[in-house]
């Protein structure tokens, strides 16, 4: 069987999770390599969760939230952005390509965008190969 990436997607309850629902309602198709974990806000994504996912073998992690200015909790997405920036540096130091971690803003109405973002991210991670392949010792 050919290798397929496993990707964890954090969705915030208000925008991107609903956006993912909207993608379903409109039947926008995207690759089945992603699993969604729902959190109330992208600002709830603890850096520890992201590291944990990579430790457990996730080939990619995508944090998604509301567009800047649209956060249901005002500033959660700003917090998320700050943490993803930090994590990109950190995983790079650990030897995990920083492209394996993504951050995208998807509104509740953007079903099409959700599908596009997932399709693009899956193909990007597929291009990077398995987590312990490209960068292994």
């Amino acid at each position: 069987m050919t290798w397929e990436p496993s990707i964890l997607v954090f969705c915030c309850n208000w925008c991107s999770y609903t956006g993912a629902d909207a993608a379903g309602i409109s039947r926008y198709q995207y690759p089945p390599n992603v699993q969604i974990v729902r959190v109330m806000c992208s600002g709830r994504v603890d850096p520890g969760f992201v590291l944990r996912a990579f430790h457990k073998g996730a080939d990619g992690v995508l944090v998604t939230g509301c567009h800047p200015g649209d956060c249901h909790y005002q500033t959660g997405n700003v917090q998320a952005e700050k943490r993803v920036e930090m994590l990109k540096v950190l995983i790079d130091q650990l030897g995990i390509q920083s492209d394996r971690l993504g951050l995208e803003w998807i509104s509740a109405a953007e079903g099409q965008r959700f599908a596009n973002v997932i399709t693009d991210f899956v193909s990007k991670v597929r291009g990077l190969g398995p987590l312990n392949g490209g960068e292994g010792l």
Partner: protein
Amino acid sequence: MAKRDLTDDELVWNCLTCKLCQNYCPEDVDFIGFIKDVRGISRDNGGKPEYTHGEMMQTMARIVASGKFRQNKLGWLDKSKVSTDGEVALWIGCAPYVDTALKEVGSDQVQITQSAIELLNKIGIKPRILEEEVCCGHDMLWIGEEETFEELKDKNLEVLSESGISKLVFTCPEGYEVMKHYYPNMDVELAHISEVISDYVDEGKATFDPYEAKITYQDPCRLGRFLGIYDQPRKVLEQIPGIELVEMERNRSRSRCCGVSAWINCNQNSKKMQLQRMEEAVNAAHTLVTNGPKCITHFNCVKNENGFEKEIEFIDWTVIVSQTLRGV
């Protein structure tokens, strides 16, 4: 009466393993060794500590231990100051990771490592940096996560034996302690940077620029009570003109911990303990010199927080000595 379930008992995890109790124990019971083993048992039964910082530090150690990735933590290194074939190596450890993860807290551990390189250069040593070294495993050992510790230890033993070095120098007392006591059959000499400089001072060659300050010195638990290194750092500080070295109320073997160990169970007590220690420091001096990167990170944290507004400056031993020691 029901038996006490130690699996989730906070006493198992709240212990700092600072070894202060063993100062007083008439029977010299290895209480902290006991704690370490109970933690392992607790973990087997589903227990776990209260991780700080979202378990990031532990997860990083596990990622490194998996051996799947080529670390890339030396971006800051000036290669002209290190050698690729010397016999003396400097341990880097987790400093770059902690700096990235805790940037907001104000962690600047790489600065200590860089100061150590400067310091070694000044006494004529271009240290080796072991690019393949992995986390020393100290924290994993002390939180009872033995399997991760074993993986890290085995990898490091391999790296050390392949490197051909004869001496390994530490800025962080934890790596030193764990290797000295838990890495078997080491044929590499281990030393804290304060021992190396102390020896250099003993040779009579050292001269220092003045540093005007009333200073008190914090003994890290691992360096003091675990490794017995109390005199060497103090001796070097006393050589620096302008430094007035004073002791806090509780010092040397009675010294109090910086408040947290192994990135777990930082809590109400930790804060209270830290505030008390700050109080002691302020009563004695204006500057507190620590001798372990993690200690200074923890003290910086208290200082950034509300609850302690008094003036005190923290500086790491390696940094102050590298600033003042004159090169050959």
